[in-house]
């Protein structure tokens, strides 16, 4: 396919996924469309955020990228590989790693380093190289100090960093974070998000961050907003956050700073739309005088 050449690392074309519920006789009881004509194009090295409320289909999308679910209609390519081909499943999973929501339910081993080694073991990496990769990945997430610890004794944020290290050890080109911070306290959230940014910056890993916390996406390169299985908004953070009313319609909380700026602008003050950080707001207010 000539299309492959300029194709991004993740490319979805009119992706549809339906959850079909059947009764005992196998008759269709109800069909829930979790993904509805989703188009996605992610270039290598980007930091992409997918925002959406509960039940918007964002986790279903994430599971497609890792070939855990397979599309009902449409197509999805990960690094040029069609996820629907049976023989592509393992290569796709090696290319796109995934970090899940619950840190406890994705750590397999009882010692941090053994868990990080689990992925490389599965893909048949030689023993010496597994050790290198484990040391490397633990350093990348700043957890080297805890390598001999039991995951049960770590905080939520630390557990999630171990889970990230487990994915990094498989050296994927892309990591999908499926609401990695939903079960963490504010400190843990910061730890995880800054780890994701660091991987993106230092190792050039493509990041797909799926979340419903708006504060976490202000530093992303590009944002998709999902609602009822469809992509309803897309753009850079600045573009997205300048459309405050629209975001509210999709039941998303706008960051406080943006909200304050928006309210001020509505009162007639000359403040630009799409303010993302406190510094920007302070600057804008100072310039008013």
């Amino acid at each position: 396919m000539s299309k492959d050449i300029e194709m991004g690392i993740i490319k979805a074309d009119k992706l549809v996924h339906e959850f079909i519920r059947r009764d005992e006789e196998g008759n269709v009881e109800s069909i829930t469309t979790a993904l509805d004509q989703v188009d996605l194009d992610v270039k290598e090295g980007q930091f992409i955020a997918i925002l959406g409320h509960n039940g918007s289909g964002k986790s279903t999308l994430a599971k497609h990228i890792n070939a855990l679910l397979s599309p009902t209609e449409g197509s999805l390519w990960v690094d040029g590989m069609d996820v629907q081909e049976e023989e592509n499943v393992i290569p796709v999973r090696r290319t796109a790693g995934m970090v899940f929501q619950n840190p406890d339910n994705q750590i397999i081993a009882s010692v941090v380093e053994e868990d990080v080694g689990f992925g490389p073991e599965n893909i048949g990496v030689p023993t010496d190289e597994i050790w290198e990769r484990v040391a490397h990945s633990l350093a990348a997430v700043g957890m080297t100090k805890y390598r001999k610890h039991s995951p049960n004794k770590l905080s939520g944020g630390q557990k999630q960093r171990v889970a990230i290290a487990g994915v990094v050890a498989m050296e994927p080109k892309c990591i999908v974070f499926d609401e990695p911070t939903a079960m963490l306290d504010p400190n843990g959230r910061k730890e995880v998000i800054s780890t994701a940014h660091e991987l993106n910056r230092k190792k050039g890993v493509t990041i797909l961050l799926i979340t419903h916390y708006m504060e976490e996406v202000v530093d992303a390169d590009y944002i998709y907003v999902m609602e009822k299985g469809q992509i309803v908004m897309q753009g850079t953070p600045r573009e997205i956050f300048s459309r405050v009313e629209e975001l509210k319609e999709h039941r998303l909380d706008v960051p406080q700073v943006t909200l304050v700026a928006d309210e001020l602008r509505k009162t007639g003050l000359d403040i630009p739309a799409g303010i993302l950080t406190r510094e920007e707001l302070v600057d804008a207010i100072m310039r008013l005088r």
Partner: protein
Amino acid sequence: MIRDITIGQYYPAESAIHKLDPRVKLFSTLIYIIALFCFRGIAGFVIITAALAAVIKISKVPFKFMVKGLKAIVILLLITGVFNLLFTPGDITIWSWGPFKLTDAGISNAILMVLRLIYLILGTSLMTLTTTPNQLTDGLEKVLGPLNKIHVPVHAIAMMMSIALRFIPILIEETDKIMKAQMARGADFENGNLIQKARNMIPLLIPLFVSAFRRADDLAMAMEARCYSGGEGRTKMKPLTYDKKDYIAYILDSVFIVLVVAARVFVPFPM
């Protein structure tokens, strides 16, 4: 209280015992159990005690930590002790009342059984305390490897065991949490007769099962996402290889069991 169970937990430390090959530890535990049930006389007991004490000392696991594990079996110890004490027929009856009688054999039996159980728990928990569940299952996988030829899914069984061990503390914590939550809603886990008590456990067990299944589902997905596809084509981060210290341990095991058997043959008193 529920948190005090140390059986099946790993105690991280840098010691010679921790570094031993898990196969050696499995074999040693087996030898230890055999010794425990075939020793006779004070000499054998002294040998076993000395061996156990030495291994605990070398392992750097605090003795206090191990004793905590015993708390979980206090009831079992009491029942064993009392039954042996009151129902063993013997030559000299010291006291009797109906079907109960206290005899010389009963007393020595009770002491012996309780000691055996305590030693059994201490010895076997020492193995799990010094071996990570992963190593343990790696060891089992290797030891049971030949069974693969007759289509026993050795790898799958080993994987299930290691995951079960990893989730013990998590599920215990969860039980604690659900218990408190249900107590806050007026559930009563302490009063009533046995049947009522069993029935009162339902609001604890159902949420626990639901959450365990959910966890299993999540975990299976996380494993798949990390390319897990069974034992074939897997490499090992920590492959098992025998070392000089492992051979030494095997020799010590042999010496130990020979000593215990010799003690049984030559000094079989006073028990």
